[in-house]
């Protein structure tokens, strides 16, 4: 291998990439448990399909647009790496192979659109959703990843490299980006039938807990892996992730107990995710004590923020806005207060003698990503809605989207139903009569 290659760093980032991959099925369970029985599978597969679509697009042009040499002003990468050609086995990003870096970043590109799906649970056409993912990563995620994550000695992305916005592992590029896109999409699609009237209780809190546990576990790869090396910064990012998440669980539960009188399971799971989201941009620049503060603030603030949808009347089904947009913004802004200047970055926050400088930069990053994501996501959503239609019919929505869109159901509860239904082994295209004949002949 060439000079500068580190086997330790490479092993660590490869494993981190695998951990981050697990977050997407984890997210599927987190969301899947929160919807009603009749739409469980649709919720699961809305996340899962992102693994398929984004991986292919990443190879074709996604990696190049995100991490190819800058095509101008730090807005987007060029097309040097179309089809991931021209990347050799011995080419390095820092101390790790370019392919290692590319697969790690791919996992971020996969989970970001999957996060959006929670905002439009129970009512999106699957084909329209798949098309949205393809267009959204192309027009929103790939450019924003370039803005935030692409460093090239001052010639990289305009937010991260050129203006010093700190986003260690994706508070702006992933969470604000997805959260705001979720807001745009739920405005385009409209409310679920029966919103605010029918009970829409989660059908399986154990699934939600399983999902949030997998997310928590995978997030260590997400945050620590973002150091791109097995070093002290990675270690600090990992411990900060654990601390802030724990604090956020407590923050959410205490808020809930005071406000609603119960410590709920869903609150504990949601608090964990809120803490993970908030510490993501900050984990490489704050101290463990700062992480406790960020977690407590994020937990309580996100618990309060989820009531926004009832106040303003938009149906963000699974609180993507309240948890990801608000949580991401809190984490990004708190970097401007709690960055110590001694962990991974030299920039200091307000509480560590850095003045308002970094806070201003963080606010600019939050605003830039939020505005861009909202506008483009809304336009994309409208374009799909007005052409092929983004929403299923009311009948389908009431009956449950699983059977209409996927010809499946998540659970078989009925002992009687089994004796009333009949399995037809005929391959697609055969009529019932020929199928019967085949059966008799056999």
């Amino acid at each position: 291998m060439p000079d500068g290659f580190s086997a330790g760093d490479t092993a660590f980032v490869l494993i981190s990439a695998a951990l981050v991959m697990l977050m997407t099925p984890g997210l599927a369970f987190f969301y899947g448990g929160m919807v009603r029985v009749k739409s469980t599978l649709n919720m699961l597969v809305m996340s899962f399909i992102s693994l398929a679509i984004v991986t292919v697009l990443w190879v074709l042009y996604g990696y190049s647009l995100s991490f190819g040499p800058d095509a101008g002003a730090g807005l987007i990468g060029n097309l040097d790496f179309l089809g991931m050609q021209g990347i050799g086995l011995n080419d390095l990003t820092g101390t790790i192979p370019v392919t290692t870096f590319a697969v790690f970043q791919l996992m971020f590109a996969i989970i970001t659109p999957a996060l959006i799906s929670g905002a439009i649970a129970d009512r999106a056409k699957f084909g329209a959703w798949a098309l949205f993912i393809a267009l959204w990563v192309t027009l929103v995620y790939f450019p924003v990843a370039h803005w935030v994550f692409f460093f090239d000695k001052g010639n990289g992305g305009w937010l991260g490299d050129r203006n010093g916005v700190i986003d260690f592992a994706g508070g702006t590029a992933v969470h604000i980006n997805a959260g705001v896109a979720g807001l745009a999409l739920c405005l385009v699609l409209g409310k679920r039938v029966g919103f605010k009237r029918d009970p829409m209780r989660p059908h399986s809190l154990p699934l939600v807990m399983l999902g949030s546990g997998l997310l928590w576990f995978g997030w260590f790869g997400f945050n620590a892996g973002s150091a791109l090396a097995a070093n002290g910064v990675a270690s600090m990012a990992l411990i900060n992730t654990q601390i802030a998440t724990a604090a956020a669980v407590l923050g959410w539960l205490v808020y809930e107990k005071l406000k609603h009188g119960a410590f709920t399971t869903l609150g504990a799971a949601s608090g964990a995710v809120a803490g993970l989201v908030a510490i993501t941009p900050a984990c490489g620049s704050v101290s463990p004590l700062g992480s406790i503060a960020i977690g407590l603030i994020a937990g309580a603030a996100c618990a309060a923020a989820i009531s926004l949808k009832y106040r303003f009347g938009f149906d963000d089904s699974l609180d993507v806005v309240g948890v990801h947009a608000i949580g991401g913004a809190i984490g990004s802004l708190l970097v401007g207060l709690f960055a110590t200047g001694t962990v991974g970055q030299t920039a200091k926050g307000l509480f560590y003698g850095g003045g308002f400088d970094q806070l201003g930069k963080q606010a600019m990053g939050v605003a830039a990503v939020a505005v861009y994501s909202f506008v483009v996501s809304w336009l994309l959503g409208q374009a799909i809605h007005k052409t092929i239609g983004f929403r299923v019919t009311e009948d389908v929505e009431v009956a449950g989207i699983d059977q209409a869109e996927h010809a499946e159901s998540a659970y078989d509860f009925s002992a009687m139903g089994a004796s009333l239904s009949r399995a037809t082994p005929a391959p697609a295209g055969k009529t019932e009569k020929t199928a019967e004949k085949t059966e008799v002949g056999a």
Partner: protein
Amino acid sequence: MKLITAIIKPHRLDDVKAALQAFGVHGLTVTEASGYGRQRGHTEVYRGAEYTVDLVPKVRIEVLVEDDDAEQLIDVLVKAARTGKIGDGKVWSVPVETAVRVRTGERGPDAL
């Protein structure tokens, strides 16, 4: 013949079943049921959204008995099902015209 129907708290089922067996009842039908009486249901909270759940889980027991046994059986059943707290349930009886044992075709009291 009479059909005795009882709606009781699920956790009283074993005691009621034992009491009915001791009384000499040969068969009964049990169904999971839900409903509410004066006590209504309960409230659940999910991320701050409160859901009032009206229907409370109950068990529905149905027993066919001869007319002479009906009153006494109702007493046995009520005694076994009672906890003294709200939501203990209801028991009622209705006249039955006929009953047939499917296996043998026996009718009336013989079918019980």
